[in-house]
Every structure is written in C-alpha cells, then in structure tokens.
C-alpha cells in the first residue's frame, strides 16, 4: 500500500514526466497478429518493447524521432513496410536499415530532413517504394543512390525541386512512377528526359508545376505510360514539347483555384505528331469550340471533358473516328442531342453525369452510337414521363445503363426494348412511376444486376419484375411494402435466379414463411434496418449456405425450432437487435456461443434485456439456467440428510431420556 501511495505522490510531483511515460505505455493497435501494427499519434520516442520482433507492417507516423540510426529499428528485422510520416526526423544516419533485408517501402513524408547519409538506405534487398514527399529537398543529389536499383516508385512531391536532372549514377531501370507534384519545375530539358531512357512504361507526374518551357525534341521518340501536367497555365508550350512522343494517358486538366488560358485549336497544334491514347482536359474553358478543335488527336481513344463549361458540341467534329470513351460529365447541356453524337461513331462508353442543367433526353439523340456499351446519365436532373424506348433508340449493344439520382421517370411496359443486351441497370434514387400490372423490364434476358433502391416503387405490382430470367442481383433497399409485410405471393416470384437480394430499410415488420420459396439459388440476403422479429427467419428455412444480414431489426428471442435454419447458413449478422439474454432465450444463447465463427458484427451484438446485462456482448454472457434443476436436486439431498439427522437426534434424545429415567 505504502509503495502505491508513494507512486501516486511521485505522479503528482513529476506530473509532466509521468505523462510521457503513460503516453509511451499507450498501446499500438494490432491490425494483424504479430505482423501489422499501427502506432500513429502516440508521441513515441522509440520503438516500444511491446512490438513483437516479427512485425512486418509498421505505421509509425506522427511520433518523435529526430535522429534515426542503425539501433532505432534494429530489433524489427522482418519489416517490409515502414511508415515514418511526420516524425520530425532531421537525420537519417549511416546503415539505419542495414539489417532490414525484406524492407520494400519506406515513407518519410513530411519530415524536415537535414541530411541522409550515403549508406542510410543500404540493407534492403528489394527497396521498391520511397516516399520523400515534403521533406524540403531542393536538389536531387540529396537522395542517396546506392541502393535504389530496384526502385519502382519515387515520390518527390511538395519539395523545392526546380530541376529534374537526375544524378548521373541514378538507377532508373525498374522505375515505373516518378512523382514531382507541386514543385518549382518550370523547364524540362532533353538531358533530364534522356536520363530516364532506361525506364519502360514510366509514369511522370508534373501536376502543380507551372511548366514554361520544354526543350525542343526532349520527348522525341520517347514512350510513357502516363504524363500529368495538371494545372499548367500554358498548355500550348507543353504540347509542343511533347512532339513525337507516344503517351498512353495524358492528364492536362486544371483546377478551380488555378488561372488558365482559354483553349483554342491552336493550343493543340503541337500534338499533330504525337501519339496519345487517352487525354483529360477537365475544368478548362474552350474559346469558340470549333469542329476542328481536336483534329490533331488522331487515334485518340479516350477523351475526358469533365466540367469544361460546355453547352453543346459542334456537329462534324474532325478526328474523332476512333474515339472509344467520351466523358462529358458536369457540363451544362440542355438537351442530349446537343452533344452531336454522330461525330463519335466508334464510341463504346459515354458518361454525362452530374449535368449542371436539367437534361432533356430528347428523342433518338444517341441513335448513331451503334457500338455503345456503357451509358452513364446519373445525377443529371433528367425527368421523363415515358421512358426509354424513343430516348435510347438503336442502342442495341448497350450493356450498362446508369440513370440513378434523377427526377421522376414514367416507365411503360417493355421500357427498355431498345437495349435488349443490358446486363446492368441502375435506377437508384430515381422515382419510378409504373402503372399497375405493367412490366417495364420485360424481355431483358441478359440483365444480371438491377438496382432499384429508393425508387418509391409500387411493390404490390406482382408483374413489376416479370421477364428477367437471368437476374442475379436485385437491390430493393428503401422501398416500402404494403402493411410492412412480404406476403406469400409477391413481386419476387418471377426472379427465380436471384443470388443477391437487398431488402434493407424497407420498414418490414414480417415476412411470410413462403415468401422466398422460389428463390433457391440465393447466396446473400440483406434484411438489415427493418423491424423484423425472430419469426421472419422461418422464411429462410429452405435455403442453405446463405450470408444473412439481420442487423438493426427488432429481434428479441429466437425460438429453438428456428436454430437449424440459422445453423445451415454460412454467415449471419445479428448486431444492433434488442436481443433477450434471459433464460427464455437460452437455446439461442447457447447456439450463439457454439457458432461464433459464423457470426459477423460480434462487437455490436449486445443484450437489451435484462436491464442488468444491457449493452453486454452476447459472446460474454454466461447464463446457466440449468442451475434450478441442479439446485432442486441439492435441495432434496439436503432436506433428506436433514431428516435423517433429525431422526437420529430424536432417537438419541429418547435413548438418553430412557437411560436417565
């Protein structure tokens, strides 16, 4: 006791220093036993003794390690990933990682590095990723080159680098990604690009550098996986500099907070001799969008014009014959026909999502796009009373259609007759008006995924889902059923091939025993966030190997006869239910403990009753209801013994009395 008081007194006296000790006693979080640990934000000054020697992935950011040297991590020789983000590291001394042969990623982001020793990165046999983002580097000679032969990505963003000339002995053979974001690079010389010649499929990121000049011929006959010049103010200079290069993906977008010049046909002239597969021009302004704007993009396959303030595209745009993917999202078209789709005869993917104006689908606007496979028209305030055969005329190869987050749609019988090849149809959060007895999805023989969440459906229409023989995934989240109940005859009857069914947040009170009787192929059912009781489990009795989500319902007691139904499923989530932890539910509680491997959300599966156990995890509840039977047994034995004792006492007393007469 005395020592404890002493410790308290010491704690009071040396409040500050004790606090440091307590904070270093704070535990790292174990994400994967003996392998992965997170020790971020703990104010640590060293590797805690509690970390096992077998640690492989260590997140150690936001601690305090002014100097790192060969003793700092010496115990953890199995490290493969080490994150030292913002640890106030000034010095990386000789041989810091000498014994870490497995190490492949070192993150030093946000450290005020003063000096890295020549041999500071020696040791790892396959060092692949090095993050030196925002470490104050101004010269590339700062990086020790001795062990970088296997480097695949080098991150040098947010530094003070003005020249990308790599030191002569810098190994680039395995380099795939070189990141120079947000530096002060204004000029790219031939010498700098030539130094990267050994790298194949290289991606270079110059985002946030205002490039003012590229040496003529610098990119001559060079091949790149991707080049990013985001936020550059003078695109014409950049594009001229890229002449005779082959580039898979070229990102030339700008941003809300970046001043840029208007783009004209002349801007792109430099690209006439360059081969580019995919180009992004997001957020730019076009000055007089002419039909010859893209005449230099011959062979272009993907064009992204997101948020480019477009109200229409001129007809007869040249050079777009081989375009496969076009993104026109976040623009201001009033009518779909204003994109003049005929200019893009080979188009397979078209994205017009998040249109800033109410978009009118018009009639036959996309009929020239015979090869279209994917169409995204979500978030565009589209409203239509009779969809979608005239609007989607001639799109006979369409496989993916997204019309989610729009205004009310009226759907008639066979509303998607023009797109018989549809495999995925997303109508989530779009109010659908379907007249009674009509089947809008009729004849979609190949449809596999149908998202109808929050569509305010009339679920009493038994024919709603008729004609979908191959439907595997149906989402009915947030739709309401009459009387809060799914009856024996319901709209799910025609979709017998369903494998995944989402019925969450449907305000359900009950499900008929026979409601799913024709759905024999189901693998997953989500019934969470309803008001179902234990009895609804009966409807799953003919299904096996299912993953069942019953979270956030009104399940209190699960009777004995329903436990085999649960036992035959593969995973079950019963979290956030007002479960009963009294003896009236003892069969389920026993079953629960025996089947913990099948259960999900164990942490959130707690008792609601009795009040004494409220909030206690079900897996921690120890109930022994058989105690009454055992108790009775002992009570009988005890009473029996007492009687015997009494008889003996009386006998003894009488004998004693007789002896003394």
């Amino acid at each position, binding site marked *: *006791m005395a020592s404890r*008081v002493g410790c*308290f007194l010491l*704690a*009071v006296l040396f*409040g500050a220093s004790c*606090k440091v000790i*307590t*904070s270093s006693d704070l535990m790292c979080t174990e994400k994967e036993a003996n392998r992965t640990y997170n020790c971020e*934000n703990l104010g640590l000054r060293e590797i805690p003794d509690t970390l096992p020697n077998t640690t492989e992935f260590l997140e150690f*950011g*936001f601690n305090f390690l002014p100097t790192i040297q060969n003793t700092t991590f010496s115990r953890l020789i199995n490290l493969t990933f080490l994150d030292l*983000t*913002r640890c106030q590291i000034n010095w990386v001394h000789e041989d810091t990682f000498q014994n870490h042969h497995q190490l492949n990623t070192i*993150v030093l*982001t*946000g450290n005020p590095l003063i000096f890295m020793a020549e041999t500071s990165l020696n040791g790892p046999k396959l060092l692949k990723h090095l*993050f030196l*983002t*925002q470490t104050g580097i101004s010269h590339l000679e700062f990086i020790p080159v001795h062990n970088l032969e296997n480097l695949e990505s080098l*991150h040098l*963003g*947010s530094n003070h680098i003005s020249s990308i000339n790599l030191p002569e002995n810098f190994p680039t053979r395995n380099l795939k990604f070189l990141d120079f*974001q*947000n530096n002060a690079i204004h000029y790219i010389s031939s010498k700098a690009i030539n130094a990267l010649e050994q790298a194949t499929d290289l991606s270079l990121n110059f*985002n*946030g550098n205002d490039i003012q000049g590229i040496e003529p011929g610098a990119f001559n006959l060079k091949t790149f996986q991707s080049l990013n010049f*985001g*936020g550059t103010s003078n695109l014409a200079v950049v594009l001229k500099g890229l002449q005779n290069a082959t580039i898979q993906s070229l990102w030339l*977008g700008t*941003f*809300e*907070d*970046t001043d840029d010049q208007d783009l004209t046909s002349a801007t792109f002239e430099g690209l006439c001799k360059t081969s580019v597969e995919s180009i992004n021009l*997001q*957020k730019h302004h076009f000055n007089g969008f002419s039909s010859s704007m893209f005449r230099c993009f011959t062979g272009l396959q993907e064009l*992204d014009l*997101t*948020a480019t303030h477009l109200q229409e595209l001129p007809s007869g745009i040249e050079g777009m014959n081989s375009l496969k993917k076009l*993104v026109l*999202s*976040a623009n201001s078209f009033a009518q779909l026909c204003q994109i003049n789709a005929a200019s893009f005869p080979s188009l397979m993917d078209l994205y017009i999502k998040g249109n800033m104006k109410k978009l009118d689908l018009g009639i036959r606007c996309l009929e020239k796009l015979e090869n279209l496979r994917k169409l995204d028209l979500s978030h565009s305030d589209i409203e239509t009373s009779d969809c979608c055969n005239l609007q989607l005329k001639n799109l006979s190869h369409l496989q993916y259609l997204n019309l989610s987050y729009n205004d009310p749609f009226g759907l008639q019988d066979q509303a998607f007759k023009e797109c018989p090849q549809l495999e995925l149809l997303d109508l989530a959060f779009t109010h659908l008006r379907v007249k009674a007895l009509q089947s809008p999805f009729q004849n979609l023989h190949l449809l596999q995924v149908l998202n109808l969440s929050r569509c305010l459906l009339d679920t009493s229409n038994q024919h709603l889902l008729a004609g979908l023989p191959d439907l595997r995934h149906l989402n009915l989240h947030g739709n309401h059923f009459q009387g809060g109940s799914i009856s024996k005859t319901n709209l799910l009857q025609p979709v017998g091939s369903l494998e995944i069914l989402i019925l969450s947040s449907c305000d359900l009170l009950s499900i008929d025993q026979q409601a799913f009787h024709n759905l024999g192929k189901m693998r997953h059912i989500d019934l969470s966030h309803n008001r179902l009781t234990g009895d609804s489990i009966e409807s799953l009795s003919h299904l096996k190997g299912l993953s069942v989500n019953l979270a956030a319902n009104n399940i209190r007691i699960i009777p004995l006869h329903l436990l085999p139904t649960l036992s035959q499923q593969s995973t079950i989530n019963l979290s956030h239910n007002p479960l009963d932890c009294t003896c009236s539910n003892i069969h389920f509680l026993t079953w629960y403990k025996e089947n913990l491997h099948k259960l999900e959300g164990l942490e959130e599966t707690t008792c609601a009753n009795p009040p004494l156990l409220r909030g206690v995890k079900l897996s921690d509840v120890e109930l022994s209801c058989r105690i009454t039977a055992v108790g009775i047994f002992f009570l009988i034995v005890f009473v029996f013994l007492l009687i015997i004792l009494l008889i003996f006492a009386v006998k003894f007393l009488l004998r004693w009395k007789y002896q003394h007469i």
Partner: protein
Amino acid sequence: MKGFTAALLLWALGSPRGGGGESWPTHVACRGGNLEVLYQSCDPRQDFGFSVDQCSKQLEPNLNIRFGIILREDISELFLDLALFSQGSSILNFSFPVCEADLPKFSFCGRRKGEQIYYAGPVNNLGFEIPVGEYQVRLELYNQDHSTVACANATVLCS
C-alpha cells in the same frame, strides 16, 4: 485513502491530453461590421487555421478563403458535410464532394498523409444574404475511407 485516490483519478482525467478532455481554442475566421464567424477544431488530434477574406452578411459568390492544416489522411477523395443549426434545431444538411477520383476540383486533391497544406483561393460558393441571428455550423471533411481530415464547430453571429 479512497478519497485521495479518487481525487488523483479526477486530476488525471481532468489534466490536459491525459483524459482527452482538452479542447482546441476558439479562433476568429472573420469579423466584419455585422458578421462574426468563430470556429473551433473538433478533431481531437489537431487544430487548423482558417479565415475568410471578406466578411459581411451579404455573402459574395466565390469567396476567397485561407486554410492551413496537416493532413492526417490521404485525400485522393475528399467530402465536406455541413450541418446548420439555429436555436438548437436543424435547418440545413448537405454533403459536397471536394475531390473525386474522376473530378479533382482543387489543386490540393490527391495530396498525401503527412503533407502540410496551405490553400488560399476561391471556394465556388453561391452568394446570398445571411438573415440576422445566431447559427451553429458543424463542418466535417473526410476522405474515401470515412476518416476525418478536419472537423469544425463554428458559430455565425449576424446582426
């Protein structure tokens, strides 16, 4: 003895950082003739700096702000949730994407965990007049994994 232990426990809980009871100071984001905006970080890990260039109840469109923070998370995707309350009742809730994979609106999109960010520029807001009154605003910035990037409780006093 028990009393002493309890007192110590209370002291330990009440001391800064130990029990997590400390809150960040309240800062002034802007103070004009008839408008005052105060904010306090509700991220227990750190404070941040924020100011608005122009401060009047007639809110101009496309305001310029200044914002400084250390990123605790990657922000290849970043979302803003805003909840506006007046006299304890909720008036407005909305969510706004700041950075998305297919539309990085601002130049800071895609910056990494551990980077220090200073942003001075427009926020692309609508202009409107703030009615007289006192408002509470809760702002939360979070990334693709729903991890908090910044959190603020703000008070807007308009007279």
